[in-house]
């Protein structure tokens, strides 16, 4: 034989070499076909006996893997009875002995594929296979294989999913129709023969050819295994092919497709019809996709015809009935826990949405879902035409079921973030050694990693324990109730009663016994006699306006302070008018006129000598309103009578018509309001203020500034005016009590303060943290 020229470098190579001695490219798989093989086999031509394993050896790695994955994906729980595993499951055994011819080479081919692609490794690991009972033979074979010889296991699994032979020991292929074994074999069986050549004609990079393709070709009877020969005897007649009409413009194989298309249309609601029409437009070449699907359908059809496979599973209602070996597969089931799945699985064990379903649909390729027992016969004819044009397949046009068998990560990774170029890791060991970016290095594996175990025991240092003890002591001390000292409370209460008793005695004894212990005062009054002088000079017939704006609580001081001045006015017969901005003011005015010494003795009558205008509402606004128009602000008296038409106020139109304006108050703010609101409207009318001692510091500046013409403050000033008028009144009566009571209070405070300071100091000295 002449030298073979390398397709890569173009240099001649000896024919016995399988690889180019110059560039290392493989030569023989591409050029290993004989001229007879390259010739298309015509219909009805006697097929040439050929072992399918030879072709499987030269298949590209992807195709071999695909075949393995197809047989691996069903993952039907098998038993020794249901799926008899041949004892020669090792890679070195003859696979044709126990399995049909078309699958015999898979094991060897798989075993020779030293470089398994990355996605194939993913397929193997992601296979959602339920733990199935493994026979002893298989266990031995697995033990012999070892973990690294995974491709050999693919062949075993492929055998495991081989259609179950009938009860009589016949395999599925043995149950073929009788016509298949004769010279008048059905076309679909005769077309099996050229499939071998068709496989050889495929380009090396074409992945479209699979083991299913060989199953569609005719096999000579002598080359058929025993089970296939028995199939010929017991097989029923081939199903009639539906008539094809209007086939002048289309090739034969396409005309055979039409009835099938109609059937597909009935099955898939018109979509297949469209596909069929589109394929009909293709000039005499069948789409590689469609060819593969048809070939697979033919195989499955045979299985169903001969009862090898049980009834289609109920879950195939959408994509067609599934064979029995696919019935037990739950497409939504997650992968087994033992496999390093590269897809996210939620908590319920379901794959994430539709992507997950798509990923697990790999277990049963789409062409398997399209299988229909009624279409098997028609698809057998299509297979013949499909074998004639394998060269039209392009390497980029993978069949859909091949595309569906891509690694799971490539299917699911659409939703994931594409790993960056620099993030890809080159595998250093294992079957994926040398491949780069095969396995996700970061994000995909993160959640799957087992979380590190941390000890639940708290590690606390001695210092931390000491601080914790301090904190606990502090918190406990805060929440701990303190014992209340009953004895101490009794002591405090006793002291209070004792202080009250002493003060009552100090005030009461001089008051009720009439003992004068305080001498007459020699001091001057606050205004140095200005108020007394002013009142003495007031006209007797002009009314004086007196404002009672003090609280009843301070009536004792204010009545005693005001009595000498009001008494002086009463002695002169001056008419009076009372008003108040306090609700209790009118009552206090009545009380003052009726009960106060130096006043009550004059027997002033309400409505005749004095007028009680009552309560003036509104505070400062009421004061201003009253100052602007007193007749409108207070038109009536507390008796309901007109205040300004008759009586002492007759002829008064404004505040300036009063002889004097006298304010009695205990509040500096009230006095200030009267000064601010009424003072500008008084004109020449003097304003005199009789106040409590507590208000003097704040009111005195108004006197010093001249806004007030007179200021009488407290009991001391009243005492001074009583002394000067030589008429003892309440000030004289209270003077001794005031003196003794104040002195006792001062003594109590001094003695008690010293005692408290000492005891408190001793208590703090005993216990620095305790509050006395």
């Amino acid at each position, binding site marked *: 034989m002449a030298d073979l020229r390398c397709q890569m470098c173009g240099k001649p190579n000896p024919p016995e070499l399988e690889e180019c001695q110059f560039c290392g490219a493989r030569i023989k798989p591409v050029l290993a076909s004989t001229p007879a093989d390259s010739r298309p086999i015509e219909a009805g031509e006697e097929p040439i006996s050929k072992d399918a394993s030879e072709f499987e050896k030269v298949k590209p790695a992807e195709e071999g893997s695909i075949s393995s994955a197809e047989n691996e994906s069903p993952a039907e729980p098998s038993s020794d009875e249901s799926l008899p595993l041949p004892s020669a499951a090792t890679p070195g055994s003859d696979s044709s002995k126990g399995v049909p011819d078309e699958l015999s080479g898979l094991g060897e081919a798989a075993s020779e594929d030293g470089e398994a692609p990355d996605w194939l490794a993913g397929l193997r690991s992601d296979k959602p296979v339920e733990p199935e009972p493994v026979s002893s033979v298989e266990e031995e074979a697995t033990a012999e294989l070892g973990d690294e010889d995974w491709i050999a296991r693919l062949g075993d699994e492929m055998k495991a999913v081989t259609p179950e032979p009938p009860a009589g020991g016949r395999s599925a292929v043995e149950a073929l129709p009788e016509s298949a074994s004769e010279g008048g074999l059905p076309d679909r069986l005769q077309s099996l023969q050229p499939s071998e050549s068709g496989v050889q004609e495929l380009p090396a990079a074409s992945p479209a050819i699979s083991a299913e393709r060989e199953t569609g070709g005719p096999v000579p009877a002598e080359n058929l295994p025993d089970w296939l020969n028995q199939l010929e005897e017991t097989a029923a007649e081939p199903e009639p092919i539906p008539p094809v009409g209007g086939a002048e413009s289309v090739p034969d194989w396409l005309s055979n497709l039409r009835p099938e298309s109609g059937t597909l249309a009935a099955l898939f609601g018109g979509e297949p019809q469209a596909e069929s029409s589109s394929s009909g437009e293709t000039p005499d070449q069948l789409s590689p996709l469609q060819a593969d699907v048809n070939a697979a359908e033919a195989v499955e059809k045979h299985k169903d015809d001969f009862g090898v496979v049980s009834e289609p599973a109920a879950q195939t209602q959408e994509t067609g009935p599934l064979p029995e070996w696919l019935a037990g597969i739950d497409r939504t089931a997650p992968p087994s826990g033992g496999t390093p799945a590269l897809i996210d699985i939620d908590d319920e064990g379901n794959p994430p949405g539709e992507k997950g379903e798509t990923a697990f649909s790999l277990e049963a390729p789409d062409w398997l879902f399209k299988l229909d027992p009624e279409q098997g016969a028609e698809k057998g004819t299509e297979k013949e035409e499909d074998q004639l044009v394998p060269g039209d397949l392009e390497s980029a046009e993978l069949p859909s079921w091949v595309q569906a068998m891509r690694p799971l990560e490539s299917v699911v990774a659409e939703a994931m973030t594409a790993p960056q170029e620099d993030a890809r890791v080159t595998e250093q060991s294992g079957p994926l050694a040398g491949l780069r970016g095969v396995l996700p290095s970061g994000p995909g594996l993160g959640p799957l990693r087992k979380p590190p175990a941390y000890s639940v025991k708290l590690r606390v240092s001695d210092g931390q324990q000491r601080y914790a003890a301090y904190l606990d002591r502090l918190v406990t001390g805060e929440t701990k109730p303190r014992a209340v000292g009953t004895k101490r409370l009794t002591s405090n209460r006793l002291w209070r009663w004792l202080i009250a008793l002493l003060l009552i005695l100090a005030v009461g004894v001089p008051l009720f016994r009439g003992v004068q*212990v305080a001498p007459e005062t020699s001091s001057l009054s606050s205004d140095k006699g200005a108020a007394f002088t002013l009142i003495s000079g007031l006209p007797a017939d002009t009314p004086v306006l007196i404002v009672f704006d003090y609280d*009843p609580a301070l009536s004792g001081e204010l009545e005693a302070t005001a009595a000498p001045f009001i008494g002086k006015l009463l002695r002169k017969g001056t008419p009076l008018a009372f008003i108040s901005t306090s609700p209790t003011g009118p009552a206090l005015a009545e009380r003052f006129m009726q009960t106060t010494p130096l006043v009550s003795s004059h027997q002033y009558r309400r409505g005749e000598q004095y007028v009680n205008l009552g309560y003036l509402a509104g505070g400062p606004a009421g004061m201003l309103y009253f100052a602007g128009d007193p007749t*409108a602000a207070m038109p009536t008296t507390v008796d309901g009578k007109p205040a300004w038409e008759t009586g002492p106020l007759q002829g008064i139109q404004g505040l300036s018509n009063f002889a004097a304006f006298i304010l009695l108050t205990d509040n500096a703010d009230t006095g200030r309001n009267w000064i601010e609101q009424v003072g500008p409207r008084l004109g020449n009318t003097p304003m005199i203020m009789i106040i409590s001692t507590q208000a003097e510091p704040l009111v005195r500046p108004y006197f010093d500034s001249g806004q007030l013409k007179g200021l009488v403050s407290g009991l001391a000033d009243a005492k001074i005016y009583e002394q000067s008028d030589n008429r003892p009144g309440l000030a004289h009566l209270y003077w001794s009590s005031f003196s003794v009571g104040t002195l006792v209070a001062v003594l109590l405070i001094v003695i008690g303060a010293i005692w408290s300071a000492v005891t408190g100091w001793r208590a703090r000295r005993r216990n620095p943290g305790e509050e006395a």
Partner: protein
Amino acid sequence: MKIKGVFSTAIAIAVGLLVLVGYLFGYKADGSLSLLGKLQSSLLYIAVALAGFAVLVGIGNLLLVHMNKIRHKQKGAAYSFILIVALVTTLLLGLLAPYQPKAASIFNDSFNVVQLPVEASLMALLAITLTYASIRLLRRHLNLLSVIFLITALLILLGTAPWPFLGDVPFLSNIIRPFVAQIPATAGARGILLGVALGTLTTGLRILFGADRPYRGK
């Protein structure tokens, strides 16, 4: 700003300005009220009437609150009952007082016998309480400020009242007490009052300028 807000703001500013101008130009040269003075008086009359009505509203609210306490038998319902009885009784006596002299006498006696002694007694209790607090002051707070506070109180007391058998203490009554009352105390109080006056002035100006609108009822 809504129309309602604009309307109320305009009214408030106008009233404020009228009353303020009434202080300055409310009187003619002869002492009679000018037009601005009359406007001011009219506005103030409305204010006084509203203030008097506010007192009535407060009394009514007090009555309702205590009636609810009695109705729901809450704690202190007995005191609420006493309050309502006293309020109604006093109100009736006050209404009858102008027409019934007997009712007027009872009305005045109820004040002189009940309210005034009660309030005076509370003031007396305040004297005892303050004395006791002054005694306990240095036990709880023994520091310089407490000592100063206590000494100041003692000086004012001793300078206000005459000493038994001694009368006024010459230096204390004539110099120390007036000095403490008029200089430090008044200075501090005046400072507070000046601050209050400035705050009041600012508040009034803000209301006049419409920056503050407390009359919106919110």
